[in-house]
């Protein structure tokens, strides 16, 4: 028994992007914005000002347990979670809690691998997929630090917040995981929090970034930026 429609995964920001008349594309079962205006304009905005990109489809796993680190290392030895387009990452949130991000769709394989290794280790380590529960908004551009300083008390200077590090903080009165993921020379930060607050956080960032000329960008421009 099923429906005639193919299941499609939508991000919490889907209704916002839909209203903006964006063209959509699909990746790993997700419907994501391809282009909002033109790819060139979006790239220019990212390089000169600041942009927001919806990266909710990135896979997200939680690995918890006193022996999580050893399980993680064993899993990496078996099949390293390859760095792919700067979207893979392992972040230690607590000594016994790791947050793992993967490119869209890769979380299934990663979860399977970690679960297998965990079971083999006979240690009490749990792997939970939370992709659907988290919105992920990437703030990219030279004005990204200034924009975020209007909604978050962290010091976003590279000396205080180096690339590929993560911090949990209050952002616009909500709890968010913030990961610095620069794109080449462009400062960039992934804002990851509960999906039900995704629209609120997006709207707040747009409002705070108005003075810097913030605009949303689609997957095409983001891919070009990452490609360099």
């Amino acid at each position, binding site marked *: *028994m*099923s*429906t005639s*429609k*193919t*299941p*499609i*995964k*939508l*991000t*919490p920001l*889907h*209704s916002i992007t*839909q209203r903006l008349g964006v063209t959509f594309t699909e990746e790993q079962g*997700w419907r994501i914005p391809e282009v909002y205006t033109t790819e060139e304009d979006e790239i220019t905005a990212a390089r000169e000002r600041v942009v927001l990109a919806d990266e*909710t489809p990135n896979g997200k796993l*939680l690995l*918890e*347990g006193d022996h999580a680190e050893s399980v993680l290392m064993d899993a990496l030895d078996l099949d390293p979670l390859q760095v792919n387009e700067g979207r893979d990452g392992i972040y230690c949130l607590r000594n016994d809690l790791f947050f793992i991000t993967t490119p869209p769709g890769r979380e299934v394989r990663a979860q399977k691998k970690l679960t297998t290794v965990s079971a083999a280790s006979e240690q*009490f380590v*749990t792997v*939970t*997929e*939370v*992709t*659907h*529960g*988290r919105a992920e908004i990437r703030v990219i551009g030279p004005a990204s630090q*200034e924009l975020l*300083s*209007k*909604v*978050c*008390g*962290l*010091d976003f*200077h590279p000396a*205080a917040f180096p690339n590929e590090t993560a911090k949990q903080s209050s952002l*616009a*009165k*909500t709890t968010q995981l913030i990961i610095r993921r620069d794109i080449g020379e462009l400062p960039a930060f992934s804002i990851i929090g*509960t*999906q*039900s*607050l995704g*629209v*609120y956080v997006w709207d*707040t960032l747009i*409002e*705070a970034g108005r003075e810097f000329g913030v605009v949303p960008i689609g997957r095409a421009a983001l891919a070009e930026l990452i490609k360099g």
Partner: protein
Amino acid sequence: MRTEHDILITPNRLHPKGGEVIDRTTTIRFTFDGVEYTAHPGDTVASALTAAGVQVLSRSFKYHRPRGLLCCSGHCPNCLVQIGDEPNVRACTRPVEAGMEVRAQNVWPSLNRDLLSLTQLGSRFMPVGFYYKTFIRPQKLWPLYEHTLRHIAGLGEVHIDTPLGEFDKQYLHTDVVVAGGGPAGIGAALAAAEAGAQVLLFDENPTLGGHLRFTVPMDSSSPPEASKNLPELLEAVNHQPNITVFTDTSVLGWYQDHWLCAVKGTRLFKIRTKSVIVATGAYEVPLIFDNNDLPGVMLGSAVQRLVHLFGVLPGKQVVIVTANEDGWDVAADLQSLGVNVGAIVEERESNACSSPYRDGLINAGVPVFYRHIIVEALGSNAVRGAKITRIDEHGEISPKTTQSLHCDLIVTSMGWTPATELAYMAGGKSEYNEERAEIIPVSTPPGIYVVGRASGTHALDSQIAEAQQIGTAAAAFVGFGEVDGLTAHSPDISKPRRTSERVCVPGNKKRFVCYCEDVTDEDVQTAIAEGYDSIELLKRYSTISMGPCQGAMCSMNTIHLCAHANSSTIQETGTTTARPPTTPVTLGALAGQNMEPVQTTPIHQWHLDHGADMMVAGFWLRPNHYGDPASEAMGVRERAGLIDVSPLGKLQLTGPGVPELLERIYTNQWKNLPVGRVRYGVMCNDEGVVLNDGVCAHLNDETWYMTTTSTGATPIFEWLQWWLQSGWGEGIHLTDLTDAYSAFNLAGPQSRAVLEKLTDRNLTNKAFPYMRVRSAKVADVPCRLLRIGFTGELSYEVHCPSAYALHIWEALMDAGREFGIAPFGVEAQRILRLEKAHIIVGQDTDAMSDPLSANMAWAVKLDKPDFLGKPSLMRISTEGPKQLLVGFKMVDSDVVPDEGLQIVEPDADGRLTITGWVTSSRFSPTLAEAIGLCWLPPELASQDGAPFTIRIDGNLVEARVHHDAFYDPDGERLRM
């Protein structure tokens, strides 16, 4: 060149010269109290009005005396005006804009003829502190007093319909903050930045430069070319990448660990720094004499600001009253511009005066009155002259020698008081320096430095040298370079005294100490005579330094007066405590932008598109109804309905220790719950009070799936985390999946038929009975199905990964179309659950409600070994509950009492005793009668059908106790 027309409309505007901040090529227009004036871009409201010859800008707070420009630096209250909807704007710092509508505030009927100034006639009945002693009796007249006083006193108006302003905030992080962008601040910032430190440089003015922007440093201690150095200093700042400049920005306060607060217009900055350099300069101190508040009495620095920044001269005939070289500088400055300096009234002997301009001014014919002082400003609404008198050999004034001078501008230049509030907020200590007659900082905590006039250093060359030293030290303190220990500033005591010890000249008219609150020197004496003789008490009683100037104009003079009255020294008298904010700040700026988090479910837009009336539930936006909640409820009873219950808390517990944890946190039993089963549970705190409720499903050997109320998701997650980290966490992992799963409750007799169209899972009652959980693909998406029934009908809660939420919802709606499915909202759900007498925690229970009293004894197993709240519940079980939650029906079935109404019992005399209250009530569309839940005394609640009365709008309306559920009491429809 200025034309005749220019001269006519702006008679006080000088010919163009260098250093001005105005653009004379453009003229803009604005109004003040309805009269049109002209201005140039760069003008402030006050400079433009002064150029036009307007002298009276405001009325004073208490006596409604006319007030004009005094400090021209945004410190005193004399130029507060209303601009549009914005009250209390300082006209001397607010740039004028084309079309701006400026109004005087707190006047009636007009600024120039303010009848409220008649209050002066009764001033002898309104001494300091009179408001503590009057308007108290009769108490019933207080509303009248309050209404009248609010019209007479007070400042501008805030209209209720004023549109919300756009305020925001920004966090800043740096190594060194320099507060104050004068020569000392700039020098210190450059030194620190050159050493490698990141520096934020703040200044309250539109441009950096401090007093160099408007003074010509001509005294012997300053290099003549100093002013020429300002462009070079600014250029150096511009080319220093380690310095970020914030102009028009006031640093409001210092907080622990170098946490600073600053404001720029509508933006509030919260700044984390490692070191602070206070370079906030000094306030020029007014002299207290008869009518010293008359428009036309101005501080020397104020006149220089007007002249050099805006090309405006506020008078034609000037008398300068001074006790230092700064006054002579002002005199020479004005004379060089062609102004008629009518006289210099010098407090000192001639041989004490070392101004290089003395001879030049005397030779130019300027009369100089050595050892004289002003005693009174003459005039009614503006200065028309000055009375001066000689000071005798004992330092007292000699009334017999009083003479009058004709003038329209009195400039006082008697001395300075360092603006060191930030240093004192940080714990800095100060001492009165007899040599300089100033209270200056003598020690500061680590990382806090004071430089320039704020540290008592007035000479420009000394300021610059000191700035280099301080900036380097601050950089070293934060790890950039090394210096020999610098523990305190070096007061520049070798230079001539700048500040007079004389602050008040006796007389017989009003002499104002505090311009903000209209406090005179007589008031100060009265307060001290009444016993408020310590400076802190005096401040609180008199309200001196508590107005808009925050002590900038009055603190130093008050300390002198207090010391004199107590026959004590300045050092013994001490200072008041410095607290934020240093300058007034709007509440909007403190509040920042309106950031109220709102949670929405993944199908929020669907609800909006289908006409949902949304309601706020906690942080969530949920559909209250789609137009007709009663019909929605009936649709569930008769066919099928679908509600979005995604906000439900969803917690996953994993590990061998979970059953033991559940036994401890729930009041019922869990270890015996087989895999695939769901059970309802109640959580209590230590006192046995109901915290939350919900169901928990046993998914597999070590995995459990708990749901909580929507608003309880985060609190219960945190509460469980607390227990897990307090010794109960062995073998348990807890994950919040509230947002990972969306949940929809498909309810109604046709719900099975609907769901069967979308899944291969056997949904028969035998294969999937009531209170069971199953995994199943629904519309090709892996889901969790919970067969539970809050609504009282056959129902399935479909939990799906959130990104598929819209797909699942639309699939269910499509599948249910042939069965008449309809969405239903929270209101319909509340009707349905009330018909089943299901409680809502937080609505039917409160902070005193235990489950035994809340008709949930069936969910409490007191024979369990232990659980949270058990001791309390054991006691309640033994003693018996004091109130019981019970259902009721209204005798008049059409009357629905509001929730929260009191249940009362009249005695023989008709007096009412409150015996209970209504917690839930609705008109049941299924039963066609009003029903509800209420708390009643046990003896009443235990009798099914017992009558009681509810007070509705003052009337007593009868209701009857109803046991069991109102609808399907045996639960047959849940199990069908």
